[in-house]
């Protein structure tokens, strides 16, 4: 057994878990954060993507014990209260989801992607960077559209913030 303690969605959490417990299972079963999903056994589908210390990672390919001491953001922690994160809003507006199962991982990957590309994104880059997230419903068409739209919204927002600051 390991004693793990993390900050998850801004809240300090801890628990004693079997060492073999994956981070995704710690989130789902110990913290009740069931928005993070498991869709495969081989670390390929990306339904489990969360942010660990600010970077997108697959929570099915990491032990909870490994993550101890880290700061984790899950899909449940993305919105600011009742205000949706721009990526969440774009997925809804552009119909970037159908059954919703891959959606949390998609949104966490998209958020990370936009963070890493403040200069903006194009369709080819979005498609390439979605390599680790599989969706069976949408054919990716509207997911790509949603990410491009969110990227635009967010770069506009950060520009206007910068302007204000200046």
């Amino acid at each position, binding site marked *: 057994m390991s004693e793990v303690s993390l900050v998850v969605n801004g809240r300090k959490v801890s628990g004693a878990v079997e060492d073999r417990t994956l981070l995704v299972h710690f989130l789902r079963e110990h913290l009740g954060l069931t928005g993070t999903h498991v869709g495969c*056994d081989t670390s390929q589908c*990306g339904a489990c993507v969360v942010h660990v210390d600010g970077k997108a990672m697959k929570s*099915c390919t990491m032990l909870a014990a*490994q993550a101890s001491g880290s700061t984790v953001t899950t899909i449940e922690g993305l919105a600011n209260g009742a205000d949706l994160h721009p990526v969440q809003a774009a997925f809804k507006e552009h119909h970037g989801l159908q059954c919703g199962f891959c959606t949390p991982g998609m949104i966490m990957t998209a958020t990370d992607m936009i963070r*890493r590309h403040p200069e903006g994104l194009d369709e080819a880059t979005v498609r390439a960077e979605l390599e680790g997230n599989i969706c069976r419903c949408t054919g990716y068409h509207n997911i790509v559209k949603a990410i491009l739209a969110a990227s635009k919204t967010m770069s506009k927002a950060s520009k206007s913030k910068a302007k204000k600051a200046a």
Partner: protein
Amino acid sequence: MYSVNYHRATSVVDAVKKIKTGDAKYLSGGMTLIPAMKTRLAAPSDLVDLNHIADLKGIKVSGKTVTIGAATTHFDVANDEKLMKVCPALCALASHIGDPAVRHRGTIGGSVANNDPAADYPSALLALGATIVTNKRQLAADKFFKGLFETALKDDEIVTAVTFSAPAKAGYAKFPNPASRYAMTGVFVTKGKEGVRAAVTGAGDDGVFRSKEVEAALTKKFEASALEGVSVPSKNLMADLHASPEYRANLVVVMAKRAVMAANA
């Protein structure tokens, strides 16, 4: 996953001490080991986590000499500005390993120590004539990679860094397996002081190897056109669902051409 005991190492010395417990294994990024444990194909009794050893992280470039700490992630290799200046081919290679989430966590040391026959890094290190530095010794890449998932590492030995002298030219091209996206054939070519080297991953029956045929052709002229009409034997190439040895033999030449074009670009 079977039951396992997790240990976090604070230093290389601490790690070597902890690896003596049961049937322990070092855990770096875990991008191959943890999936293997999840499907119960790997069953170490203990894991010694190397991720929190600060000494193992970071990239140093001094002149043409590059040293990459073993626990440096693919993401950090892909985006290192100093490395980009002396050996952009290695940054490009790292930027196409797995997917963004894998690159945030997977490490060069883990990849090298695991020596997956479809991993990208082994071909680069072999073609770069790199040296693998462990807590005990320094090993030339030619001596380090021994076959499928086999290396010269002893049980308690830890890869701490890889180091190489950046060649004048280097390029990498891979054709990914359509399903897994691992290299179905990847070729890393270099042209440096010691001539041309071309190493192939994803294709060999016995893991990463250097292609005599490609090297001979590129030694004459380091251009894609030099590979026109060159063929490599399909004997000793892997056969699986997605590629026959003959198809892989073709891909070796095609990827070598593209790697050279990238190197010359």
